[in-house]
């Protein structure tokens, strides 16, 4: 083959260009430590990296939500613990009060005052706030859910927050359940609930909580639940054990305390005797709800733990898809450098000799 000078120079230029491109690419990969620097480097990986990155982004958010949910639930649980203590104390008082040996009409009157204080205490607990939000008001978080008479101004809303792509956890317990004993049987439900896999339109209807028996339409849904009657009829209201009877009405805690107070004032030992069972039920009601919150907290803990694992997995998946093997990148740089040096050395040889060098 006839080799013209232009071919030689063209060849040299070409090989130098190729070696330099190769070295440049290898250096880019080695310095960024990334195999995929733009989608065309590996289109499939690039698209998958994006979805993993979204997941990573969401995991961070879920982490924040979990922290929030945990503090919310822990605070609620603490408050319920306090509530439980109140009823232990009430039981002590009532037990003492029905005993004629240790008490008389005067001491019962003193006890009535203590019960009144305890009543005020549970109203206070009912109006607990965390970060400016009333925790026992259902969706009504900006106004105190209970007034001094024990009227409930909140609703039955269950505030659920997303802790996962698919799962939500309820972070509150509406005061109507704890203090008024509403729907106490329906509490025993698994948490976190799986996400309903339906279209937004249909989930809507199914998620609207039935506020009360007297549910109005729209605007008056959040009207104060009529607890006035409950207080009056607390003594004769049908009550059942919290456990086995679902959807049975529980105890109205305010009504109970008020009744005890009145009985103490009136020196009505017989009524006091009857309330002893109700006090036990009230304590059970609080304990049951508390354990419910406890199990949600446990759920949250395991969710936090698995989120941590998922976070690591997501990161390592991203890394596997887009990161360059450090050893490979360095050896690639070396390889390309050697090639470039070889090209330069041979180019030097190819360019030098010409017939003209040998003519004198």
């Amino acid at each position, binding site marked *: *083959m*006839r080799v*013209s*000078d*232009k*071919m030689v120079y*063209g060849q040299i230029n070409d090989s130098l260009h190729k070696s330099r491109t190769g070295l440049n690419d290898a250096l880019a990969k080695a310095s960024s430590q*990334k195999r*995929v*620097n*733009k*989608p*065309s*480097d*590996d*289109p*499939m990986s*690039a*698209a*998958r*990296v*994006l*979805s993993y*990155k*979204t997941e990573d*982004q*969401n995991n961070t*958010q*879920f982490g*924040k*939500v979990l922290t929030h949910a945990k503090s919310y639930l822990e605070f609620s649980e603490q408050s319920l613990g306090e509530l439980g203590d109140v009823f232990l104390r009430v039981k002590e008082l009532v037990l003492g009060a029905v005993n004629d040996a240790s008490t008389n009409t005067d001491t019962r009157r003193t006890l009535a005052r203590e019960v009144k204080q305890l009543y005020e205490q549970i109203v206070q607990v009912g109006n607990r706030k965390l970060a400016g*939000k009333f925790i026992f*008001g*259902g*969706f*009504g*978080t*900006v106004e105190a859910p209970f007034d001094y008479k024990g009227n409930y101004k909140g*609703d039955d*809303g269950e*505030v*659920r*927050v*997303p802790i996962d*792509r698919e799962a*939500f956890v309820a972070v509150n317990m509406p005061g109507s359940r704890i203090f008024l004993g509403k729907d106490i049987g329906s509490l025993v439900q698994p948490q976190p609930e799986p*996400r309903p896999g339906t279209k*937004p339109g249909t989930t*809507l209807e199914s*998620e*609207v909580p039935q506020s009360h028996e007297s549910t109005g339409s*729209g*605007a008056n*849904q*959040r009207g104060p639940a009529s607890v006035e009657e409950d207080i009056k009829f607390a003594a004769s209201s049908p009550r059942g054990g919290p456990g086995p009877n679902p959807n049975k009405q529980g105890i109205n805690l305010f009504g109970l305390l008020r009744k005890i107070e009145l009985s103490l004032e009136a020196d009505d030992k017989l009524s006091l005797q009857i309330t002893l069972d109700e006090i036990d039920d009230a304590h059970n009601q609080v304990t049951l709800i508390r354990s419910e919150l406890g199990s949600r907290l446990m759920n949250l803990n395991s969710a936090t733990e698995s989120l941590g694992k998922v976070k690591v997995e997501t990161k390592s998946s991203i890394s596997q898809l*887009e990161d360059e093997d450090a050893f490979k990148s360095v050896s690639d740089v070396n390889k390309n450098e050697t090639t470039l040096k070889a090209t330069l050395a041979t180019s030097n040889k190819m360019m030098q000799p*010409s*017939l*003209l060098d040998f*003519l004198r």
Partner: protein
Amino acid sequence: MAKINSMMDVGKRAMMNSQTALQTVGHNIANKSTEGFSRQRIETQTNIPISEGRYQVGMGAKTSSVTRINDIFLEKQLRFEGTQLGFEQAKSDAMTRVEQIYNEQMNKGLNQSIGEFFNSFRELATNPESTATRTLVRDTAKFVTKDFAKAVASLRAIQGELDQQVTQQVGQINAFGKEIAQLNEKIAAIEISGAPANDQRDRRDLLIKKMSEMANVRVTEAGNGMISVTVGNSGIIVSGNSSNEITSGRVENKNGREGIRNAIFIQPAVGADPMNITKEIKNGSLGGIFEVRDVAINSLLDDVDELAFSFINGVNGIHRQGFDAFSNPGGALFAPLQNKIEAAQNMGLDAAVAKDPGRIVAGIMPNAPGDNRIANMIGELQQQRVMEQGTTTYDEFYNSIVGKVGIATEKANRSAESQKNIHAQLENIRDSVSGVSLDEEATKMIEFQKTFDASAKLIQTADEMFDTILAMKR
């Protein structure tokens, strides 16, 4: 019998031949690096001999012609592959730019801002009472609209730059056409005497090759050495010694989306209506530009609009079902749009929400500040398959666009690379045939110099012979 006079004549002519040959060697060496140059060779043949009865006496050599060493079939193939190279290269260049818009390896893009949007609603779900969180939601939503608009603007910017390239290349093609017409005239004038117009032909071949890289052109040579050049099927820009011009003009894009793009026209005759020949240019860099500009980018714009439209409607659909912070029935979050076309560009926040973040809806019930169910549902929307007849989520749809762009770019890059190799190989073969070799020229230089020396010696000998004859008289 030979005459001393004719001996001197042979010597003189040999010297002249050598000089011509040496001049050609010099021409070759000087044009060693000239683009498109083919090395030239001097053709000598024996002069007409003189008959002297029973024998003939040779009368030396004469220069018959100076020809260029050139393979016209190779040139044709180079032209063809050059057209392909122009196409692939232009496509690869443009796609690399497009890819940058979808590159989220390094910078923040649409995928991330959509993710942030959904996360802002998850944040709202944990804190539906907070005005600060609502403001965050509003600002994040605003960023999403901005990022959509930015993606569209970037794609349109590339289209605009491709338009400028069209105008520029049209100008170049016209300049080449003009020069080819002038060369046609010169070549015809030179070759009518029988001498090949080497340098003019080299130049003309080079211009055709360069033109071919920009568009698919057809070249036909007439008997008188003139060529006619047609761009596409009907854009005759060179015919004989006259040249016509193609022009680039703005025409409305008939794709249903607003946008005026550069098209290519030719006026076939004076007074005739300009004819749009854009569709005929399917190859060369112009063909590549048209493909990316009118097919690839428009399809990406469709995708972005589809995503934006579905996103707006999906979010609004849920948002409208609840009540805002003031217990008013919820309105739209994004300003509702009628048309899918231009949705991404025209995307914006609803005026009421933009003014007051309290208009953002978090809950289903009125008078329930802690109600976060709408916020939860919007958060869940991220996982719902709402696009492409309920088969993909927003994220998946966008990610598949990124994959698509990546694949298209990778393919374009690879095609351009392999076409470059094919073209380089052909160039190499052409250089092997037509390129100048210094070694060869040096050898020839010595060869012709020696001939020159020897011829001079012959004349000297003849001169001495004359002297001998003149001396005989004394």
